C-alpha cells in the first residue's frame, strides 16, 4: 500500500511536469503513449494514465457524509424570556439523543449558539465530564447556564450541536478514586459559574510575576496529576497572609510610616525596612505599582504592608 502522502507529492510533481508540457486535459494525457509515460514519469504516472484511459478498474467506495448532530430554529417573533428557549432546547436534546443512540454514540460536548436581532451571536461550549445521552442531565446543564443568562438584545434564533464520541468505560488506578457523579460535579460548577461569574470559579494558579500573591483561576479539572516537586524552602520568617489584604491607616513622617492602625493589627512602628518597590503590566490597563514595607510594631509584632494607588493595606503578619 503506497503512502498516501508520498503519492500526493508524486502526483503534484507529475501534474507540474504535465502542465509545463502543455498537457492540460485528461484527453491530452490519455493520448500519450504508455511506454513514454513510464520511461519519463514513472509508475505513478502510469497508474494515472491507465485511469485516464479508462483501463483500470476501481471499486467505488461509499463515503457517507458525517452524521450531523445539530438542531436549530429561527423564531418567528423575537424572544425575550427563557421559557421558549428551554422548550426548544429540550426538543433539540431529545432529537439529538435519539440519533446518537441509534448509532451507539454519546455526547461529549454541546455547543449552544444564540443569535440576537442585531445578528451578533453568543456561543457557549459545554464539556460533558462523563459523556452521556441522558436528556435530563444534559438539559439541566443548559438550564443552569441559561438561568442567569442576560442579553441586551432579543433572541431570533437558537442552535444546538453535539459532538459525539464512543461510550468508553473508564478504568481507574487501584488507589485512585473516581468521582461518584461527574455530571453532578459539572452541574455544581456550572451553577457556581452562573452565580459568581466564570472568572471566580476554578483552580487558583500562582502567576509567574513580580506582583506579590498574584494568581489566576484555571477551569477546574478532575485529574490525577502527580504532585509537583516541592518548592524550595524559603529563608526568613514565614508570612501569614491576610486574604484579602486588610485596609489600614498609616501615619507618615517624611514619607516613612510612623504609626499603623487597622482592624487586625495596630500600634506605633518601632522599626521598619523598605520600601520595596515593584510595578508591572505597564503595557496595558492592568498596570500596577506598589511600595512594600516590613514594620515592627511596638508590641513586637512584625507585619508586612504596602501602599498602592488604593491606599495602605496589610498583607500579613510574620510568624
Amino acid at each position, binding site marked *: 500500500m503506497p503512502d498516501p502522502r508520498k503519492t500526493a507529492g508524486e502526483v503534484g510533481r507529475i501534474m507540474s511536469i504535465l502542465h*509545463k508540457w502543455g498537457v492540460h486535459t485528461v484527453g491530452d494525457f490519455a493520448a500519450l503513449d504508455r511506454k513514454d509515460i513510464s520511461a*519519463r514519469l514513472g509508475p505513478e504516472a502510469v497508474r494515472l494514465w491507465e485511469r485516464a484511459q479508462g483501463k483500470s478498474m476501481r471499486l467505488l467506495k461509499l463515503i457517507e457524509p458525517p452524521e450531523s448532530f445539530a438542531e436549530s430554529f429561527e423564531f418567528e417573533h423575537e424572544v425575550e424570556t427563557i421559557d421558549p428557549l428551554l422548550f426548544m432546547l429540550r426538543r433539540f436534546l431529545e432529537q439529538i439523543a435519539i440519533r446518537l443512540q441509534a448509532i451507539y454514540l454519546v455526547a461529549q460536548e454541546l455547543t449552544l449558539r444564540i443569535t440576537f436581532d442585531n445578528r451578533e451571536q453568543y456561543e457557549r461550549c459545554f464539556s460533558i465530564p462523563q459523556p452521556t445521552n441522558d436528556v435530563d442531565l444534559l438539559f439541566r446543564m443548559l438550564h443552569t447556564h441559561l438561568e442567569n443568562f442576560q442579553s441586551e438584545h432579543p433572541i431570533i434564533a437558537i442552535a444546538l450541536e453535539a459532538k459525539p464520541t464512543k461510550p468508553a468505560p473508564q478504568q481507574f488506578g487501584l488507589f485512585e478514586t473516581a468521582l461518584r457523579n461527574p455530571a453532578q460535579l459539572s452541574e455544581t460548577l456550572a451553577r457556581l459559574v452562573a452565580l459568581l461569574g466564570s472568572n471566580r470559579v476554578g483552580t487558583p494558579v500562582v502567576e509567574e510575576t513580580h506582583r506579590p500573591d498574584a494568581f489566576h483561576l484555571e477551569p477546574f479539572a478532575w485529574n490525577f496529576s502527580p504532585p509537583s516537586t516541592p518548592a524550595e524552602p524559603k529563608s526568613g520568617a514565614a508570612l501569614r497572609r491576610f486574604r484579602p489584604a486588610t485596609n489600614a491607616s498609616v501615619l507618615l513622617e517624611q514619607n516613612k510610616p510612623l504609626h499603623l492602625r487597622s482592624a487586625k493589627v495596630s500600634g506605633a512602628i518601632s522599626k521598619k525596612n523598605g520600601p520595596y518597590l*515593584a510595578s508591572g503590566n505597564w503595557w496595558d490597563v492592568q498596570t500596577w505599582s506598589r511600595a512594600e514595607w516590613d514594620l515592627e510594631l511596638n508590641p513586637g509584632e512584625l507585619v508586612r504592608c504596602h501602599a498602592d494607588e488604593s491606599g495602605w493595606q496589610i498583607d500579613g503578619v510574620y510568624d
Partner: protein
Amino acid sequence: MPMSPAGKSTVFTTDDFASCAMSYVELHAGSAFSFLRGGSFPEQLAETAAELEMPAMALLDRDGVYGSQRFAMAAREQNVRPITGAELTMEDGAILPVLVENRAGYKNLCGLLTQAHLRSEKGKCSVQWSELAEFADGLVALVGEAVCFPRDANSVAYSSENRAQFLIDAFGCENVFVEIQRHFLRGKERINRPLVDLAAHYRLSILATNGVQYAKPSGRQVADVFTCIREHTHLDAAGKLLTQNAERHLKSDREMRELFRDLPEAIENTSRLAERLTFSLENIGYEFPSFPVPSGHSMDSFLRTIVWFGAQQRYTAVSAAVKRQLEEELALISKLGFPGYFLIVWDIVNFCREHDVMVQGRGSAANSAVCYCLGITPVDPVSNHLVFERFLSESRKGWPDIDLDLPSGDRRESVIQEIYRRYGKHGAAMTANVITYRGRSAAREIGKALNFSPSILDRFSHLFASGDFPHTLDLQSQIEQAGLPKEHPRMPAFIDLYQAMYGLPRHLGQHSGGMIICQDKLSSFVPLENASMPGRVVAQWDKDDCEDLGIVKVDLLGLGMMSVMQDALELCRERGRPLDLAHIPKDDAATFEIMQKADTIGVFQIESRAQMATLPRMKPKCFYDVVIEVAIIRPGPIQGDMVHPYLARRAGREPVTYFDPRLKPILGRTLGVPLFQEQMLKIAMVMADFSGDEAEELRRALSFHRSEVRMNKVSVKLRAAMQRKNVAPAVIDKILQSITSFALYGFPESHAISFAILAYGSAYLKVHRASEFYASLLNNQPMGFYTPATIVKDASRHGVKTQPVCVQRSTWNCAVVSDETVRLGFCVVNGLRHEHADELVRQRQDRQFDSLDDFKRRVAVSKEELRALAELGALNCFTDHRRAAMWRVEEAMHDDLLARSTSSSPLKRMNISERVQADYETMNLTIGPHPMKLLRERLPNVWRAIDLAQAQPGASVQIAGNVICRQRPGTAKGFVFISLEDETGVANAIVDPDVFERFRLMITEESFLLIEGDVQNSENVVLIKTRDIRPLAHEQLVGSESHDFH
C-alpha cells in the same frame, strides 16, 4: 611621525573636577550599545548625568566599547568626564565589570575583548578566567552580584571568596572593588551583606553603583521589551524575566547617599576611584602606518618626487597655477604629517592598477592636485576651480578623507583581502555599521513583545513594506490600518515604545567599504570582532567614531557600475575596438542626446525616475551640466527648494539673481543657486567672515548627518556672524535655509564631478559600445534601478538583439556576438549552479555536444537544472522546439550496448505567451514580446508608453504595464511615483497621498497595474496624475520584480 590629530585636543585632568570631588559618580552604566540590554543612547546618559550634576560617569557596555566614543563626545560637551569600561561575559556566564584606569588598561581591554570575540562566532563573546591576569594591567575590576552570584551561570565551581581571591591575584588588591547595588528590592540585602563581609575579609573597598540600564525611569519599558526580544517571548509570558521596578536609572548624589546612608564610604569611594581613572579616549595613541620609502628618501621627499613625476604625466605642460597649487598642497601635507597617508593610498591605487582593478578616488580628494597627480582621482582640480580647503586645511582636525570607488564584487574583495594581508588580522578592520531599529523592524519587534496577533504584524509589514511613511499617516493610523483598534488598551504603549526605540542600535553590521589600518596592532585601539562574512574582521566603532578619534579610514566602496564599465572595456579590447575612458571625447553629441531624451536606463546615477524627469528639462549640453544633473537630484537641494529655481533660470523663465552681489563669483556657475557644499563654505566665509576653523566646523556639521544639535549650533553662529556684518534678515534666512537643507545630504562638487565622469562614461558606452555595455550590465546584476527584463527590452529598443541561452554557445556570462547582438549567458538562468555551468563549458571546449543524450551523459547537471534549460530553450539546438527538449530530458538515461530508438515528441510547441511565461519563470526576463504586447488587443483604451507624448495635457487616459519601480521620496510630501513598463517603454504615474492610502495594498503588492488619470506634460516629461488604479489580472501576465522604495 604623524601625530594623531585627535591627540591635539585638550585632555581632561582630575583637577578640572576638583571642585566636584566626593560627589557620587556612576561607575557602572550600560547604554543601548549593550545590544538588547540598555534602553538609552549614550548621549541620553551623558545628558542626564549632566542634569544630575554628576562630575564624571563610566559607560560599561556589554562585551565592548561600542558606545564609548559617542558617550565620551556627548559627556565632554556636557562637562561630564567620561570614563571607559566594559562588562565582560565570562566563560561560565558570570558578568565582570571592568574600568579603564590608563592607556595600558585601555590597550589591555581592547586586546582582551578582541581575543574573546575573534575566537567566538559573530555576536558571541566569552572571556576565560585564566586569561584575565594577562590583560589585567591598568584595569579595575568590580566584584558584585553578577560575579559572585551570577544568575545565568552554568558553573558554580567557585565560591564568592574564591572568586574574589582570584581577582585580587589577577588585578591586585587595590584594583578590585566590591560593588554594591540597591534597587529597592526585597531580598537584595541577602546578597549585599555577604559582599560587605567579603570586602571586610579581603580589605577591599566598597563601591556603590546603580547598575544603570537607562537614563530615566521611563527607559525601563524599552529594557523590558529588549528582554522579550532577547528571550524570544512576549511581555505577557515573560513573567519574572522582566525587571521588578524602574530603579536602574541614573540617580543623583542625594538619592544615592540616602540609599547608602549606612555605607557612606561606598559613595565616597566612587569619586576617589573616578579620580584614579584618568584615561581619556581623546588620546589613544593611534598612529597611522608609515610607508617604506627607498633609501635616501624621507616620506616627504618621496611623495614630492612621485607627485612631480605624476604632474608631468597628467599635464602636458605644468602651468604656474598648477605648480603653485602643488607646492602649497605638498607644504601643507608635510606640515600636517600626512605624507605617509597619501603614499599608502597611492600604493593601494597602484595595487589596483597592477591587478587590473579599475579605481577612482571620489569625495573631497578630488579637490586635491596632489591626488590628481598621484592618479588617485581623475579630476583636475586646477582647471575645475575646486577648493583645496574642502579637502585639507591647517585648521582641520582629523585625517583627510580619500574614498576609493572600486568595481563591486570579487575585484573589490581582492583589494580588501590584500590590505588584510599587508597589515594582518589585528592590524586592519572594516568599520562597523550600526543597524538600528527603524520603521517596520521597530514596529514588528514591539508588536511581538506586546503580544499582538501575527496577522496584525504581517499586515503591517505588507502595508508598510517600504519603511517609514510619516508623510500621510501617523504611526497610530498605520497600526490601525493593520488591524489594531484605536481603543486597544496597548495602543498607547505601542506608540510610546516606538518613539523610545526608534533609532536605538539593534546589532552591529559592517560598513560597506570603510577600512581602518594602523602601525601596530589595531586591536590595541579598538576591539575587533568577526563579521558574518568569512575572512572579514570588523571594528566596534562606526566610521564617524573612528574619524572623531583620529583613526584613519580608507573607504573602499564597491560600485556596480565600475564593474560594468571595466567588464565592458575588457570586452571592447577583446573584440578589437578598444576604448580608453580617460580619452573619450567630452562633447559627444550622441551621448548628450540620449541624456536629453532621458533615454538613460542603465546609465550610472542618472537612470532613476527622478533623474529621468529632470533630464529633459535640464537638457545637458556639456560635461558640467552632467555634474549639476548628478547633484541636483538630492535631498539637500530639493529640501532647500533649490531645484526648480535652477531649472527655471536655466530655461530663462526666471532671472538669475544672487542672495548678495558678493556671492556672484561663487554662485555664478550654478546661476545663483547654491548646489554644492563648497559653495556653502565659501558663502559662510564671504557673508559671515567664517575662519578656516569655523568653515571646518560647518563642513563637519554638513557631513555629520547624525547630529542635528551640531547643525543647530553652527547655524546660530552663522546667523550671529551675518547679523554682525549687517546682512539683511531676509538674506540671512535664505542663506540659512539653503545651508541647513544640506545637513541631510551634503554633496561636494568634487564628488559630483567624480560621479559625473562615471555617468558620462557609462552613457558614452551605451551609445558607442552598446552590445558590450548591455552584456556587462546583465553580467553584473543585481544592480541599479532596473531588472534584467527591463535592460533586455531597452537593449532591443537600441538595436541590440539578445540571443537566447544555448548550451552549445553560451558561457556563464552574457557574451557579445556582434556589434548588434548579445548572447545571454547561464548567469541569467534561475537555479543553475555556477560550477555546473563551468563544467558544461569545459566539456564543450573538449568536444561539442553532438546530441541531447551526449549532453546529458557528459554534463552533471541536476534534473531541475536540465528541466529549466529545456524550458527556456537552451536545448533547442538538439530538438525542434522547447517542449521536444522537455520531453527528452525526462527520459531516464540507460547505458545500453545497443542504441535505443527514442520516440519523437508528441508535445505541442509552446505558443508565444507560453514561451514568455516560461522565460520569466526560468530567467526573470524574456527576449520575446513584452507580456503587455500579448494583451494589447484586449486593452483598446489603454495608451502605449511611447504614445503618451502626443496626449493632450489634462486629457484623461489609461496606462497599463508591469510595475518596475515604486518610489516615495522623503522629499515628495507623501507622493508616490510608479513606473509601468509596456512593450514600447516606460510610463510614469504620480499618486497623491489620498489615492495612495486608498489603494495602498494594491499598489505595493500587484505586479501589473492599470492606472487611469490625467496627463501632465511639462517640458516633454509626461506624468499621469492618478485617479483610479486597478490590478491587471491575467493568467498570461508574468512579469519581473519591481525595484521599490529604495
